[in-house]
């Protein structure tokens, strides 16, 4: 990039922080100063000079007398939804950056009939299928038995075993994470790799490993595959394609198959469609979320909102806003839990715990936010005022009064529920009060 363009882009970026009223003047001053320094630099580093613009802009941003702009933006229902959408996109973006989550999310690109197979197990099928904690669970003997007895249900079967193997590279002998696999693997994944000759092992590397260990030298390497094409369990630098008989008999590995029919009948194996992996994540969160919503709805029923019910278009708007919040929070919980659950390098059952905890937190927030908004304009209620004293609860009302900035009404939230004041009470001020508010 041209340095002048870079410096101007830096100033423009910093200007975003400057309050709108001062922005044009601020930018004109910095551009003018930059122009003069460029002509007569006196040994000044122009990039460092432009970096100073960020501190200057930050100071102006902090010194801006406009109060609490974040809460102002959160007050508006539209911006609240925009923030939630942005957070959902951020969680998804973070997931795509984390290799373990990326593998799960991009698995949806595999064809529907491509499956991973695990021996049948009595426990939770999701865990038995190795979905959350993919682990090698099939011995070569079982793979051969599967091939012999149920092979007609598949159009192809492949077996691979992750292993650390010493490989001769131009820089000497290095230990690489390789998958020792039967030659059908790449055919099943539709990755074009030259066919192996019987009895001759072939080394295929990921592009990053090829550059890292072989410095781009094709000698001894049969093929190079883009890193993104491998979305199966086990992180590998490459693959050693061998005959099934050459693979270790007792070491357990993974089995990949392509179904001939829609399902697998009378099999000793569980299967999971690779394309379904991301939807399984979402599917695991949905019941938790529904459960926590129901739980909070039951817990809060009768203690709040009774007098805030609104009918007609206003009530519909309120319900739609609640539904939109739930729809936007759901992916945040699903993707956020997936991101946090993959901290160890693979998606583990911790994902379920995080998702459950996240569902409770999210539901709690949704209900609290909904209760703290004006039922008419859906903006957050403001200016809380404490009224009364807890020691005199039998004599007078004790709690917090909140007000709608647009003058639609007042919300009374009791501190302690009493026989005569157990619920939140909404006082509709009506249009006659609107003249008092801006």
């Amino acid at each position: 990039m041209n340095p002048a363009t870079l410096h101007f882009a830096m100033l423009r970026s910093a200007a975003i922080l400057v309050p709108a009223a001062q922005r044009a003047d601020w930018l004109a001053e910095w551009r003018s100063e930059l122009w003069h320094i460029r002509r007569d630099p006196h040994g000044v580093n122009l990039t460092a000079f432009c970096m100073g613009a960020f501190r200057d802009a930050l100071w102006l941003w902090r010194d801006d007398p406009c109060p609490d702009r974040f809460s102002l933006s959160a007050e508006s229902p539209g911006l609240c939804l925009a923030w939630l959408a942005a957070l959902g996109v951020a969680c998804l973006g973070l997931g795509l950056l984390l290799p373990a989550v990326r593998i799960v999310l991009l698995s949806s690109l595999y064809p529907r009939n491509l499956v991973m197979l695990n021996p049948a197990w009595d426990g939770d099928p999701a865990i038995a299928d190795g979905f959350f904690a993919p682990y090698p669970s099939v011995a070569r003997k079982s793979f051969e038995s599967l091939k012999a007895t149920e092979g007609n249900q598949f159009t192809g079967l492949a077996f691979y075993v992750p292993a650390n193997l010493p490989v001769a590279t131009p820089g000497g002998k290095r230990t690489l994470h390789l998958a020792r696999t039967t030659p059908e693997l790449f055919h099943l994944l539709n990755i074009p790799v030259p066919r192996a000759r019987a009895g001759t092992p072939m080394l295929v590397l990921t592009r990053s490993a090829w550059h890292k260990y072989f410095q781009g030298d094709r000698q001894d390497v049969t093929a190079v595959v883009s890193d993104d094409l491998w979305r199966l369990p086990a992180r590998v630098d490459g693959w050693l394609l061998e005959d099934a008989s050459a693979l270790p008999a007792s070491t357990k590995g993974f089995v990949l198959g392509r179904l001939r029919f829609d399902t697998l009948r009378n099999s000793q194996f569980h299967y999971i469609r690779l394309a379904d992996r991301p939807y399984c994540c979402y599917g695991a969160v949905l019941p938790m979320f529904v459960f926590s919503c129901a739980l909070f709805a039951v817990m809060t029923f009768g203690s709040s909102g009774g007098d805030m019910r609104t009918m007609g278009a206003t009530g519909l708007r309120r319900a739609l806003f609640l539904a939109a919040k739930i729809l936007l929070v759901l992916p945040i919980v699903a993707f956020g839990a997936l991101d946090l659950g993959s901290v160890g390098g693979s998606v583990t059952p911790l994902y379920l715990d995080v998702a459950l905890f996240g569902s409770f937190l999210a539901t709690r927030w949704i209900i609290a936010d909904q209760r703290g908004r004006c039922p008419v304009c859906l903006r957050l209620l403001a200016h809380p005022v404490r009224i009364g004293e807890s020691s005199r609860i039998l004599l007078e009302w004790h709690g917090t009064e909140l007000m709608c900035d647009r003058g639609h009404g007042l919300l009374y939230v009791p501190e302690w529920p009493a026989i005569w004041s157990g619920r939140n009470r909404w006082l509709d001020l009506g249009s006659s009060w609107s003249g008092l508010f801006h």
Partner: protein
Amino acid sequence: MASELKLSHTSAMILKAIDSGHVYGFGVMEVTGLPSGTVYPAMRRLERDSLIRSRWEKQAIADAEQRPPRKYYTLTTSGRATLEASQKRYPLLANLIPANAGEKA
């Protein structure tokens, strides 16, 4: 009241630089040796506290010299009083900042 305002050494140095005739941001940076990220926010603060004031150079002058106009800073009366008080607090300030009559706006 402004003369009672206690300035940090950096702010006093910037005030002195402006008083000595270094009337725009980069001039102050050069003479004080401070980075842009310190000088400009400090000048904003001084301007907010009414110790200095800024004004844009006339467009006609800049056009005649085929360059963009610069923003010049000058001391206010209270700024001058504060500087005098600061010079008592930091006696070596005058030695640090040489006068620059040529740049006086």
